[in-house]
C-alpha cells in the first residue's frame, strides 16, 4: 500500500515550528517510514509548481504553520487546503495568529516605514524605496506579494480540520497527531490536539497557588530571585497557566519561567486573552477602582502579555485605530 502523503508549509512564522519537527530526533525516522513527505520547503526541494500539479486531496494531511498576512500566504493556504484531505494548523501562529499577530496593533504602512524607511534602525535608504507589488526591471516584470491590512489565523482564511497548538507544538503532541492521522483514529474535526484542561490542573507548583485575591503588586521575572518550587502567581509573577491549555509537560514552568500562554485556551474559553486577564485580575486584592487601576498599570504591555499568541483569533482582532493612522488607542 502506498504511504500517505504529507506536506509542511510555513507562512508568517519564525522557523521554530520546523525546529519542532527536527526535535522529533530519531522519531522523525518513524514518521518517514509511515508517510511520504511531498512538500516541505525548509528541508526538501519540492516547489510550489509541484504542489499545483498534485490532484486535489492528494496529500493525506498538510501541516501549515505561521499566520496569514500576505497575498502569497493566502494563495498558499488555499492551495494546501485544496490539495490535502486534512489541513492541520500547526503552532500558535496558525492556530490563533501567534506573535506575528501582534502586528495587528499597527498598520502595514507603519510596519513598512519601521523596517524600510531611511534612518529607521540600521536602514540606509535615502530614496525611501519601499517594497511594491509590481516592479519593472530592465529585464522584465517582477512581482512581490502584497501585505494584507491585518494578520489572520489559518482558520480565518480557509477551513481547518485540526489544530496542533504551541509555540512550537510539543514533540509529544506532534507524534500523537501524526500517529492518529496514520491510524485514522482522529477525534471530531475542529479539535485542538492537546489535553483539554488548564496548566494548573497538574502543575507541580499547584499546592502553593493562592486561593483568594492577595496581590497588590506584579513583578517581572528579571526583578526577583524566582523560587523554583512556589507558584509564580504567589510570587507576584504573571503566570498565565490558569487560562492555558496543558500538553507541554510544563516546559517553561519546569525551567522556572512562568507560562506565557502559547498553547492557547481550553475549549470552554472563546477569547484567550480575556480568560487570562480575568484569571490575573481576580488576584488583585482591592475593591477601590483607583487602586486596582494602579496595580494593573504595573503590567507594562497588556496586549503583548495577554494576547501574545492570539490577538488575531480574539474578539478584539486588531486595534481599531492602529498606530500609524494617527488615531488614538480605544
Amino acid at each position, binding site marked *: 500500500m502506498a504511504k500517505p502523503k504529507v506536506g509542511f508549509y510555513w507562512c508568517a512564522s519564525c522557523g521554530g515550528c520546523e525546529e519542532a519537527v527536527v526535535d522529533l530526533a530519531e522519531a522523525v525516522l518513524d514518521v518517514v517510514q509511515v508517510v511520504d513527505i511531498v512538500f516541505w520547503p525548509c528541508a526538501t526541494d519540492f516547489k510550489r509548481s509541484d504542489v499545483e500539479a498534485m490532484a486535489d486531496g492528494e496529500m493525506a494531511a498538510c501541516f501549515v504553520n505561521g499566520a496569514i498576512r500576505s497575498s502569497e500566504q493566502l494563495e498558499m493556504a488555499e492551495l494546501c487546503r485544496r490539495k490535502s484531505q486534512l489541513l492541520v494548523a500547526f503552532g500558535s501562529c496558525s492556530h490563533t495568529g501567534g506573535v506575528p499577530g501582534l*502586528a495587528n496593533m499597527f498598520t502595514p504602512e507603519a510596519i513598512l516605514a519601521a523596517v524600510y524607511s531611511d534612518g529607521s534602525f540600521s536602514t540606509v535608504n535615502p530614496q525611501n524605496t519601499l517594497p511594491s507589488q509590481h516592479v519593472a526591471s530592465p529585464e522584465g516584470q517582477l512581482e512581490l506579494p502584497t501585505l494584507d491590512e491585518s494578520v489572520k489565523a489559518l482558520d480565518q482564511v480557509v477551513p481547518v480540520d485540526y489544530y496542533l497548538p504551541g509555540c512550537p507544538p510539543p514533540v509529544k503532541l506532534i507524534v500523537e497527531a501524526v500517529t492518529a492521522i496514520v491510524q485514522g483514529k482522529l477525534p471530531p474535526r475542529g479539535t485542538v490536539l492537546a489535553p483539554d484542561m488548564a496548566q494548573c490542573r497538574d502543575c507541580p507548583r499547584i499546592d502553593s497557588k493562592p486561593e483568594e485575591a492577595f496581590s497588590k503588586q506584579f513583578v517581572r521575572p528579571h526583578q526577583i530571585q524566582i523560587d523554583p518550587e512556589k507558584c509564580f502567581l504567589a510570587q507576584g509573577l504573571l503566570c498565565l497557566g490558569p487560562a492555558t491549555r496543558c500538553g507541554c509537560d510544563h516546559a517553561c514552568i519546569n525551567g522556572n519561567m512562568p507560562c506565557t500562554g502559547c498553547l492557547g485556551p481550553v475549549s470552554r474559553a472563546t477569547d484567550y486573552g480575556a480568560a487570562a486577564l480575568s484569571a490575573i485580575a481576580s488576584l488583585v486584592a482591592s475593591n477601590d477602582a483607583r487602586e486596582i487601576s494602579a496595580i494593573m498599570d504595573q503590567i507594562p504591555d497588556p496586549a503583548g502579555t495577554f494576547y501574545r499568541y492570539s490577538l488575531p483569533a480574539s474578539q478584539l482582532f486588531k486595534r481599531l485605530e492602529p498606530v500609524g493612522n494617527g488615531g488614538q488607542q480605544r
Partner: protein
Amino acid sequence: MSQTITIDPITRLEGHGKIEIFLDDQGNATRAYFQVPELRGFEKFAEG
C-alpha cells in the same frame, strides 16, 4: 528567445525566498533577482 527561470520557493534553508533569473537569446543569465516575499514587522510591534 529570452527566457525567465523562476525558483519558487528557494528550499532547504530557514526562510522565505524566491529567485527570478532572466536569460538572454543565447540562454545566458543576464540578471538574477533574489526576492524575500515575507515580512512580519517585528521591528515595529516589538518596540518598547
